[in-house]
């Protein structure tokens, strides 16, 4: 069985493409529509999180902070997948506990390279 990756994004089409890419590569995928939904669905089986930044209810930065507050998920890789590319925002993400930053649109081989590198 493949490792489980959570994709958190308010865009269903982005979640669909992330999920398609990861499942094709043999990963199991859990989808969440925003940070709040992501926290609710976060279980011990999740090995990595790929999250958007701008989302309703709970945005990516706050979501990462809350995930990092849980001892169990203190060190799992969290990648931000967002249209945002400003250095300041990236700094915020890093400060919140993000492991890396990928700007949308992603290419499947790019996303998989990141996932494979971080889940090695």
């Amino acid at each position, binding site marked *: 069985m493949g490792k489980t990756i959570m994709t958190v994004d308010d*865009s269903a*089409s982005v979640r669909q493409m992330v999920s398609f890419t990861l499942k094709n590569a043999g990963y199991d995928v859990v989808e969440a529509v925003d940070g709040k939904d992501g926290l609710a669905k976060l279980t011990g089986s999740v090995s990595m999180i790929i999250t958007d930044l701008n989302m309703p209810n709970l945005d990516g930065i706050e979501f990462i902070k809350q995930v990092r507050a849980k001892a169990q998920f203190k060190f799992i890789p969290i990648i931000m997948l*967002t*249209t*945002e590319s400003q250095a300041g925002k990236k700094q915020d993400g890093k400060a919140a506990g*993000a492991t890396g930053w990928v700007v949308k649109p992603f290419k499947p081989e790019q996303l998989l390279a990141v996932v494979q590198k*971080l889940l090695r």
Partner: protein
Amino acid sequence: MEDSTIQAVVNDAEVASFLARARKEAAPLCVDLSKAVTPREAEFLELGAALQRVAGTVEDIVEQAEFLTGLTSRDALDSFGAELTQELDRMQALLLLAAGAENESALMSIRATLAQLGEQLGSFKRIVKHLHMLGISTRIESARLGADGSGFGTLADDVEKLSVAIGRQSDSISKQSQALDALAATAMEQARHMLESQRRCTDEMGSQVQRNLETLLQLSHMSQELSQALGERIRQAHHNIGQAVSSLQFHDITRQQVEHVEQAMTDLLEMIDEHLAPGRDAAETDLELVAFMAELCAMESRQVRAASDRFVDAVTSFGDRLHGVAAAMDGLADEVALVRQDARVGGGSPRTALQGIEASINNIMQSIREFVAQGEAKGEVMDRVAGTIQEMGAFLEDVEEVGASIELIALNASVKAAHTGDKGKAMGVLAQSIQSLSHAARLQTEAIAKALSGVAASSEVLRTNSARFREEVHVEEALARLGVLVKGLTSIDAETTALFAEVSAAGKAVARDITTLANGLTMHHEVARQLSASAARLDSLQQQAAALAPGGHAGMHSARLESMLGRYTMEIERQIHLGIANADAAAGDSAASAGGEEDPLDGVELF
């Protein structure tokens, strides 16, 4: 806010009228903007699902194609060729053994000995004739002696009987010898025929094996070329699917860009209302607000047009990628069909190359069966030859007995002649002759015995070869192994033929389906029309505002517009804002940009 309220607040009637109009137009503009892209998500999800189905089908075909090239891979065919060569080498060794070249020399030796035997039997006949004559002379002499020669009548009978017995023996040996010679001649003929067959069979095997190995090599090359060609098509398909995945994310990207315009226009509405509110702060004049509206509408119009272009470009790109996948699968189907055609013997033959090899091996197997049948027939003749020689061995004793009988008769004649005294002198001469004849007979019997022993010795070679053929030439086992090889080949041929057809048909079918899907993409035209209409309304507002405040900010962005830069989330929005990007450049930033060989971690920042 009522128009009358605005008229009361704003001194200039024309400005008041514009602000009232702008307020009325901004709200529905926001609604129209939100209706243009956001509701299209369901269609994007359908396209995403279609892409997943396409990718699934492509993977199934790729799996089949890889299995197909694996079946006819160099390793698989090399291994088959090696096995075939090994089996046929073994078979050739068996054929050589079955042909038994040494049989011919044994048979020649037997025939030479039989020829000598014939001559010796001729001499034996002369002895029989003498014996017969001696018998008659003894009988005449016995009659002349009258009562004194009464004992010689019995001697004459014995001599007569012996001559008859020797004649009979001689005839028997002669008949057996002739029969044996005929058999040996037949066996020699068969042996020669078998040697020729063996040579023909070996040559045929050699040339057919060579041809088969060449065919296998050709197939292996074809398979290798097919594998490379398919690899390229598969890479094309995967690359296009990857690019299509990128294109489908542009709903989210353009939605955000349009939402930012909506937000800016909503904020403008609030700004106008605040400006017109009773007890307003007079820090900003009406014309300053109008001037800001002109530059904001111009900016948002550019953002909307850029979003529209990116959306159109993404959908167009998605269609192009689908066409790319279709072309790759169509090409893959053509490559497979081409190899399927090439894999036929002599181009237009209805037989595949593997079927040609099967037929060739079956021919070889048939030749071997026929050859072995000849070998068995020859073995039977050899057995008969050996059996006949054995039978002739029995004559040896008879011939020796004849020699002893003649000696006994000669001795008896001498004794009887001595008893008769002077009257038996003539009988003594006869006894002397019988004795001489006995000596000659002794020499002949020894020569015949020697010849018969020689023939018997040669028969051992034939008997040994015959036994060895039966014990060692297990052609059926070798044929069974070849049969297994042919069966394997039949199975590979059936499987590859079916797979060639399946992969080719599946490739064509998926290419057709993908083309239909790509040709059905029209939503971007409607989205572009809606966004273009919104941009036109923004342009109209901008022109009206610019006409009322022609100086504006002297070509510079106002501080308020500058402050909006921090609200954007996308680099392309910032570039448009700063005037360093236009709609075309924005479009170029989309998924349409097909990357070549790039580092997959490009654009990724790991902390």
